[in-house]
């Protein structure tokens, strides 16, 4: 009776009938899932290292620019690089379930697939958002001794608002990865799509700058790519953020809706 107890032991404490599947329970399950994987901590650790490191570097360089560079920009500018890690984390949180077969356990525990997609999206976006807040706080503290003129907290436009958009953008990049994860299912494919949209497309669009005036509209359209929209949102002194917000929301909604359609209609 050591390795395997008597059959009656199965019902020693009968599972109460009050145990029910609820969305809050589902969120809790997704939190347990994400914090119990090493890949999550690797991703978040890399994000933190890149972000804090680059902020320090940019601050050090900006010191020689005679204060022409706002201190807040040094904090949010690494987002242009950490976005890739956020997107990849979003993708592998989903594709890891497909490659290991875990998705079948997930979908038998919660057969309403839309709820699974929403719960996963909320949790992984929240994890990245919280990490970004912590990372920004660390960067601000660590760069403070280096800057001549610190962040002007009395002007929200040049402080809290900018940081908040940085956090939102990181969450958005993560969700793009989640959407591609559900749509494509394979890690390699989902990561390629995410990196393509976040990193490669802006480069491709920029190339059209040499293509003459008739291609000008493509160069103009580039500002609505997710990374460029996020760059606009986290800049200081932007008058109208709405177009960038709409663009970024569209880039999040697109893959997520396609992923949801794939999740609903395809066999798991």
């Amino acid at each position, binding site marked *: 009776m050591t390795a395997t107890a008597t059959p009656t032991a199965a*019902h020693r404490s009968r*599972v109460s009938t009050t145990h029910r*599947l609820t969305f809050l329970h589902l969120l809790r399950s997704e939190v347990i*899932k994400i914090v119990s994987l090493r890949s999550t901590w690797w991703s978040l650790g890399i994000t933190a290292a890149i972000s804090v490191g680059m902020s320090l570097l940019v601050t050090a360089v900006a010191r020689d620019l005679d204060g022409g560079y706002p201190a807040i920009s040094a904090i949010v500018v690494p987002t242009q690089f950490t976005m890739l890690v956020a997107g990849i984390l979003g993708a592998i949180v989903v594709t890891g379930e497909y490659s290991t*077969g875990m998705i*079948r356990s997930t979908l038998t525990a919660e057969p309403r697939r839309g709820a699974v997609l929403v719960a996963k999206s909320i949790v992984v976006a929240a994890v990245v958002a919280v990490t970004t807040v912590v990372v920004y706080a660390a960067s601000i503290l660590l760069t403070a001794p280096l800057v001549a003129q610190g962040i002007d907290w009395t002007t929200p436009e040049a402080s809290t608002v900018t940081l908040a958009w940085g956090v939102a953008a990181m969450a958005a990049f993560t969700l793009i990865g989640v959407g591609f994860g559900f749509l494509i299912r394979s890690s390699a494919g989902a990561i390629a799509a995410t990196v393509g949209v976040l990193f490669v497309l802006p480069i491709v669009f920029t190339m059209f700058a040499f293509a003459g005036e008739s291609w000008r509209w493509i160069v103009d359209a580039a500002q609505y790519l997710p990374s460029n929209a996020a760059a606009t949102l986290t800049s200081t002194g932007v008058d109208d953020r709405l177009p960038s917000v709409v663009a970024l929301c569209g880039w999040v909604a697109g893959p997520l809706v396609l992923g949801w359609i794939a999740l609903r209609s395809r066999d798991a």
Partner: protein
Amino acid sequence: MIVAEHLTKRYGDKTAVDDVSFTVAPGRVTGFLGPNGAGKSTTMRMIVGLDRPSAGHVTVGGQDYRRLRSPLTEVGVLLDAKAVHTGRSARSHLRAMAATHGIGRARVDEVIELTGIGSVAGKRAGAFSLGMGQRLGIAAALLGDPHTLILDEPVNGLDPEGVRWVRQFVRHLAAEGRTVLLSSHLMSEMSQTADHVIVLGRGKVLADAPLSELVRTWTATALVVRSPRLSELVDAVSAPGVEATALEPGAARITGATPAAVGDLAASLGIPLHELSPISGSLEDAYLALTGEAVEYRTKEIA
């Protein structure tokens, strides 16, 4: 209670499950038996809503699985031992599964103890042996103390102790009035575990009957007769429908006659009998007779 009606699954022009109807009743162990590729796993995936049927439908406890509001306490599922993230520890996997229904740590610890994986519960599931993976899968299926258990090849990879445990365990659960459906391609296992057998072959139901009836219907009962005057006896019993084949000098295999008839005949003729033993067929004989034509991947007969 699981009720499948005209369940069909097509992949392109290949039909994996073809108009399958059956009922899995509570209070007994129902075995799903069939060669590889017969459609057992596909049918099970359709029962739990992972695959959408091309036609027909299936209900668990009268409801579509996708509509269950508390799936884990209704149905315990072991589809294959690999439905676990390899990077997560067994305990974390079970905790995450349990959390979806608000099932606490106490129950997680219970199923870990019950399935005997306590010593490896902190290890990454990717490092598990096949047998340990099976135990983890069974632990997950038991989390919600479900009314219905659907286990795909539960003894696959288990050591003899584990095989016996699973057998006793599912019999116990059925005795409590639960519905148990388990698949296997292992005849010996099925004959010791199942009360009722559904045989699948090439996506169709070939038989759906109590185990004993299945064996009786699909195997011929034979007699082994040994006698110093065998040829006289064989001549005497010969009748339409009775067949005798020589096994070795002085021994023959007779089908189509009861032991009583042969014994009485021998006594009336004064023929001494050294052996008169009935040989009943096994589930394996019945299975092979049933699936002879329906094997997807046929092996070449060894000459």
